C-alpha cells in the first residue's frame, strides 16, 4: 500500500457511535489542505461535528456522498500529494474496502467504560493507549467523559489516557461528599490512587481546569503538567446565565438555549445531545450535586477560587487553551498567567473548544505533554 496516500475515514466519536452521516464537504476535490483544516461535516445521532485533515496534501478523492450514512472507519475521502498517480489512488480506494471490514471487527471488541471504587465514591472512566506518561482528562461542570470524545483517541498516541466522570456527574456516584474544589481535587487523586497512577498530565476543561490547577498546587509531585482549557480558576468572571440556567433547566425547551451558549456554532447542539443531558439531570441526586457545586464554586456569577497568582508561583508546566468566542468564561482569562504559561486562543470555537477545534487542541496538548 502506498504510504503517500492518506485516508479520510468516518470517525468514531464515542463508544456508542457505529455510523455517521456525511452532511457536506467544506473543501472540494482537488483542494490543497493542511493539518487541522476542516474538510467534511459529519452528523451522528448525538452530535454534529467536523472532520479535520490529519495530514497535509491535496484532497484527491471525495468519496462520502452528502446525506449518506457510513459505518465508522469507512473510507470517505483520500489525501495525497499531486504527484501520486491517479491509478495508485484508485487501487488504494478499491483495496481499502476489504481492509476496513477486518478492522471493524477488532474495534467491536475494544474497551468499554470501566468503574473504580474510590473514597469519593464509585467513578466511571474510559482508558485508551498504554505506557508512560499518564494523561487524565477532567471534564467541566455538568459534563462527563464524553466531552473528550474527539480527544481521547488522539491523545492516546502519547501514552495512557484516562477520562473520568467526576462525582455527581456522568455515570459516577451522584453524591458529592465534599462539594468544593478541594473535594473534587481529592476525588482525582483518589482516582489516581485506586488505579495506581503515581503521576499524570492533567488536562482540565472549565471547572475541570480549576480542579487540575488545585491538584497541581496541592500535589506537585503527582502532576507532570496541566492544560487548562476554557478554564475556571483564572479570573473572577463567569456567565451565571449559563451556570444557573444549566442547573435550573428541567425541560428541553429551557435547556437547549443554555447549551447553545457552549458552542461557537449553536447548530452543534442536536436534539439527542439535549435529551442525553436531560436524562442525566433527572437522575436522583444530580440536582443536589449541581446546586451544591454551583453554590460553592460560582455563586452570583463570581468564581470563588482564583488560582492564577498561586499558579504563577508554582513550577508545574502550564498550557492554556481557549475558544475565542467562549460565552461561559471570557477568553481574556487566557493571559491571566502572563509569561508563566503558553496561551493559545483559537478562533471559530466557543467554550467547548476541545470539541469544536479538536485537531488543533490535540496538537497543542500533545506538544505540551511531550515537551
Amino acid at each position, binding site marked *: 500500500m502506498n504510504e503517500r496516500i492518506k485516508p479520510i475515514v468516518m470517525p468514531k466519536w464515542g463508544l456508542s457511535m457505529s455510523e455517521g452521516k456525511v452532511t457536506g464537504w467544506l473543501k472540494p476535490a482537488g483542494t490543497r489542505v493542511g493539518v487541522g483544516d476542516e474538510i467534511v461535516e459529519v452528523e451522528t445521532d448525538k452530535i454534529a461535528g467536523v472532520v479535520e485533515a490529519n495530514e497535509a496534501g491535496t484532497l484527491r478523492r471525495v468519496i462520502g456522498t452528502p446525506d449518506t450514512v457510513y459505518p465508522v472507519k469507512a473510507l470517505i475521502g483520500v489525501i495525497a500529494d499531486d504527484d501520486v498517480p491517479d491509478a495508485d489512488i484508485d487501487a488504494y480506494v478499491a483495496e481499502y474496502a476489504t481492509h476496513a471490514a477486518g478492522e471493524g471487527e477488532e474495534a467491536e471488541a475494544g474497551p468499554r467504560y470501566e468503574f473504580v471504587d474510590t473514597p469519593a465514591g464509585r467513578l466511571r472512566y474510559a482508558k485508551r493507549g498504554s505506557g508512560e506518561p499518564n494523561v487524565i482528562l477532567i471534564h467541566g461542570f455538568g459534563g462527563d467523559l464524553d466531552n473528550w470524545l474527539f480527544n481521547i483517541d488522539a491523545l492516546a498516541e502519547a501514552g495512557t489516557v484516562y477520562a473520568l466522570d467526576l462525582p455527581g456527574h456522568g*455515570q459516577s456516584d451522584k453524591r458529592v461528599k465534599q462539594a468544593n474544589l478541594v473535594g473534587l481535587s481529592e476525588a482525582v487523586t483518589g482516582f489516581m490512587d485506586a488505579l495506581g497512577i503515581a503521576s499524570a498530565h492533567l488536562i482540565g476543561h472549565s471547572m475541570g481546569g480549576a480542579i487540575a490547577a488545585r491538584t497541581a498546587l496541592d500535589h506537585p509531585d503527582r502532576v507532570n503538567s496541566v492544560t487548562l482549557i476554557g478554564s475556571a480558576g483564572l479570573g473572577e468572571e463567569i456567565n451565571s446565565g449559563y451556570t444557573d440556567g444549566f442547573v435550573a433547566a428541567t425541560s*428541553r*425547551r429551557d435547556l437547549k438555549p443554555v447549551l447553545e451558549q457552549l458552542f461557537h456554532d449553536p447548530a452543534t447542539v442536536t436534539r439527542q445531545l439535549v435529551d442525553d443531558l436531560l*436524562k442525566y439531570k*433527572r*437522575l436522583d441526586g444530580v440536582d443536589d450535586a449541581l446546586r451544591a457545586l454551583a453554590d460553592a464554586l460560582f455563586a452570583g456569577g463570581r468564581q470563588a477560587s482564583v488560582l492564577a497568582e498561586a499558579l504563577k508561583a508554582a513550577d508545574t508546566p502550564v498550557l492554556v487553551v481557549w475558544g475565542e468566542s467562549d460565552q461561559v468564561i471570557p477568553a481574556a482569562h487566557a493571559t491571566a498567567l502572563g509569561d508563566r504559561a503558553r496561551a493559545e486562543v483559537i478562533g471559530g470555537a466557543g467554550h467547548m473548544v476541545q470539541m469544536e477545534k479538536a485537531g488543533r487542541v490535540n496538537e497543542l496538548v500533545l506538544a505540551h505533554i511531550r515537551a
Partner: protein
Amino acid sequence: MARKISYKQAINEALDLEMRRDPTVIVLGEDIVGGAGAPGELDAWGGVLGVTKGLHAKHGNRLMDTPLSESAYIGAAIGAAACGMRPVAELMFLDFMGVCFDQILNQAAKFKYMFGGKAKTPVVIRAMVGAGFRAAAQHSQMLTPMFTHVPGLKVVCPSNAYDAKGLLIQSIRDDDPVIFCEHKALYGSEADVPEESYAIPFGEANVVREGKDVTIVSYGLTVHRALDAAEKLAKSGVQAEVIDLRTLSPIDWDTVIESVENTGRLVVVDEANPRCSIASDVASYVAQNAFGALKAAPQMVTAPHTPVPFSPVLEDLYIPSADAIAAAVNKTTARALAA
C-alpha cells in the same frame, strides 16, 4: 449505568426503588403477590401479567393481595393516601374502573379542592389499557379521555420503558392522585434505562422525531405507529415531526403549538374512541390557538366509535395503523397543495 430492559421490568424497578427509598410506599391489588390462598410463593403471579413479580420477596407485607372488589381496595388506597401513605393500587384493567368511580371522581379528585388545599391524596392507580391483546371489549379500552376530563386527577400513559420508569417514580412522588396507564402491548418493548432512580416531570411532551412538514401528536402504543408512518412518509419526501405527549393531564400545549407553528399541519393519533377524545381535545386546542399557522384542517386518526371487537381481524383494524396515519398526513399536504 443504562442497559436495555422491558417496559414491564421498568415498572417493576420503579416500584422496587421507590419502596426502598420511602417506607410509606405500599402496593395493593388483586393477585399482585401470589393470588388468593397463595401468599408470596416464589412462583407467585405478581399480578395478572407478572409486573409485580418478585417484589413481595423484597418488601414483604408492604404488598397486599386484595379481595376481588375494586371499589373496596381503591377506596382503601385513597383513604390510606389521605392519611399519609403513598399507595400504588393495581387495577388490572382500566376497564374495571367503572365500579370505583365514586372513590376516584368524587373523593380522590376532590379532596385537595374541597378541603381548601389542606388535604393531599398521593395515590397512584396503575392499570392496563389498550387493544391488541385479544382480550375482548371489557379488557381492551383506551379510557384515557374519561380521566383526563376530571380536574384533580393526573393522567400518565408512557410509550416506552425509559419513560415508564421515570414517570411512575414521578407519579409516586406526586401529591395528587395519578391514573397511570400501561399499554399491555408495550410490556415486552425494550429501551435503554438507567439503573438509578430518576423522575420525569409531568407536562413535558417528548419530541421523538423532528420534521418540518407535519406534526403528528400521539401517546402510548400509537406513538410507535406514528413513527412507522413518519418513516414511510420520509421516503416520499414528507418530514413528519412526532410528539409523544407522555402525560395527558397535565398536557404540554407549548410543545404542540410550537411544533404546529413550524409545520402548519396537525394529525392527532389516539387509540381512544373519537368523540370527546385526546384527539379531539388536541385538534380543537390547536384550531383555537394556532389557527393562523394551520395550512390544512387538523386530522384525527382514532379507533372507531365501537367497542373493541373480539374478532382478531377486526381488532387489528380497530387500532390506528401506520397506513391510516400516513393517509391522514397526505390529506393535510394534498389540501395545502390544492389551495
